């Protein structure tokens, strides 16, 4: 029993003061990050005060008021349409437009999504993002399998896959919208009621985000599927394993860590793709649409809150993938 206890004891508990050493380790990771974030927030407040000062002084001058330095600073931090909103304004707006608004509202006797709620917009961006991510991942894995198994494919497709990423996606976004909305098959499906109008609007977004997200998967999976070394492959040969068996039992398991690393990159890229796709296509709902309307009407706080919402979405998606990665690798018996 005592042997078992000694075996399961972690190195930290071996210290004289276990709690202190754990705390020190946590602090050495978090403290620098917090310091950097604090410095950024400080610079932000200073910049807000500096950039909004002109407007405050202009307004005061028109009314013939003399303001003290304190009053000027207080005003610069709480304007309605500041040049640069302060962090607390952005967070108040975020709070009000997520928890302060109902997600659904009654309209013409129907319960519909409430466009005043940022969660509603986030949903309209996240749904195509996930769809595009799935399409992109599927295509990317397929392409990588082909590239690894077929020399002709590896030589002809890989250079073009790289070249495809130098095309600015924003440029192809309107084209995809035009092509998709003119596809006879899709229009027939809408008429038959097989897919809703909303789906038609999200398909171009999903395609664009899949265009951005397939590339990291291809690169990562090609590296992953080629990662088994010569000894492993030779072992499979001595078992007289077919290519099919080598793929399922050696190459695919070896590529999983590579797959997750590239999935984290590709889901962030997919989100960028969806947001960018919403800009030129005149989308009414979605975080990109929110950015666009904010920029049309000079609602800077709205722009910044949409920006933070998209940041939160990106972070959540990446963290979720990280958790899935940990679970999968643990089940596969890897540390």
């Amino acid at each position: 029993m005592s042997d078992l206890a000694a075996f399961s004891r972690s190195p930290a508990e071996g210290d004289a003061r276990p709690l202190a050493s754990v705390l020190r380790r946590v602090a050495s990771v978090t403290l620098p990050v917090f310091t950097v974030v604090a410095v950024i927030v400080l610079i932000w407040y200073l910049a807000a005060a500096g950039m909004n000062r002109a407007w405050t002084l202009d307004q005061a001058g028109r009314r013939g008021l003399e303001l003290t330095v304190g009053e000027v600073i207080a005003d610069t931090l709480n304007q309605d349409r500041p040049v640069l909103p302060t962090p607390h304004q952005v967070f108040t707006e975020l709070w009000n437009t997520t928890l302060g608004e109902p997600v659904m509202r009654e309209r013409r006797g129907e319960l519909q999504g409430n466009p005043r709620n940022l969660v509603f917009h986030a949903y309209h961006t996240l749904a195509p993002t996930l769809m595009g991510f799935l399409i992109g991942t599927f295509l990317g894995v397929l392409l990588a399998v082909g590239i690894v198994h077929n020399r002709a494919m590896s030589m002809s497709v890989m250079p073009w896959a790289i070249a495809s990423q130098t095309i600015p996606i924003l440029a192809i976004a309107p084209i995809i919208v035009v092509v998709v909305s003119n596809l006879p098959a899709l229009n027939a499906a809408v008429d038959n009621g097989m897919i809703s109008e909303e789906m038609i609007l999200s398909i171009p977004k999903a395609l664009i985000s899949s265009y951005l997200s397939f590339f990291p998967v291809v690169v990562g999976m090609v590296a992953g599927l080629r990662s088994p070394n010569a000894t492993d492959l030779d072992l499979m040969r001595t078992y007289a394993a077919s290519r099919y068996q080598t793929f399922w039992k050696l190459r695919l398991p070896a590529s999983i860590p590579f797959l997750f690393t590239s999935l984290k990159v590709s889901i962030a890229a997919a989100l960028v793709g969806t947001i960018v796709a919403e800009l030129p296509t005149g989308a009414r709902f979605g975080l990109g649409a929110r950015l666009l309307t904010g920029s049309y009407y000079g609602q800077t706080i709205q722009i910044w809150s949409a920006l933070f919402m998209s940041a939160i979405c990106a972070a959540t998606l990446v963290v979720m993938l990280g958790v899935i990665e940990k679970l999968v690798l643990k089940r596969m018996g890897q540390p």
Partner: protein
Amino acid sequence: MARRSRWRVSILPALRRGPWYEYVRHRWLRSNRWLVPPVIRAAIVGLAFLADWRLGVFFLVWFAPWAVNAALSDRRTIGAGVVVPMIFGVTLLGLWELVVQLYEISPIILPAPSAIWARITGATDILWADFRQTVLKGALAGYVIGCGAAFLTALAVDRSGFLQRGLVPVGNFMAALPIVGTAPILVMWFGFGWPSKAAVVVAMVFFPMLVNCIQGLKVTDQTQRDLMHTYAARYDQILLKLRLPAAMPFVFNGLKVCTTLALIGAIVAEFFGSPTVGMGFRIKIEMGRLSMDMVWAEIAVAALGGSGFYGLVAFIERRMTFWHPSQRQG
């Protein structure tokens, strides 16, 4: 054995009577295995012809160059690395042209490559003006400023391990964010001209570049640094003669990633307001007028510019980091 289908159970034993079956099967497969894929391809082409002759032509045009590519890449011909992708690209363009012509697709939906080429040669002056505005002014200025600032920041925090440990996670986080979203804000701040586009590009390239530079400056190992200490080298000497050269592969990796980001940033920013010249502006306007050949012409120019930019950085990398294992040939 028990799971075999009825077909195999009932037919195959009948065929297998006598040794001739095994003999023919083995003989044929051993000598003619390479025939299997062409037979499958021929079957696909034949079926397609039966269904719709245009589909048959499509598959014929697809498989013919593919067979050439397969032969070229299997025999490891010299120069195949250039020829094979070229054949593939030309085939794709040919198929595109073929589909548009055969199925009579409206030029509003998808113009043919020949129409796009006609537009490129016809509107060279407009395309050049747009290219100069977006790429040479907006993207390039932002790229140089952003990457330069990131490099200098990495050098500035180099001596503080504390700041590095803080900046790397924050930088990684920022690099994953949709920074393109700051475009409307920056256009508001810096106006419609090219400086606002450069500012968007700076915001987009800064963090990926910073993270790469900080990681690059850390790659030297203890023995190498110890060696420099035994030479009594100063901080700046170690930096110049050991750590900066060692960091170059990482720096160039960042520079390559940033080329694409720079172009995207500059074009996206033009959607939020621009003078009446620029690639993003032109795409927006010509989309409204439904002249898709002009939109495609702009895309072709953007793709060429982007590939050229990437290729240039990759070329410089090859010349400067020729010593690194990743650059070895063969």
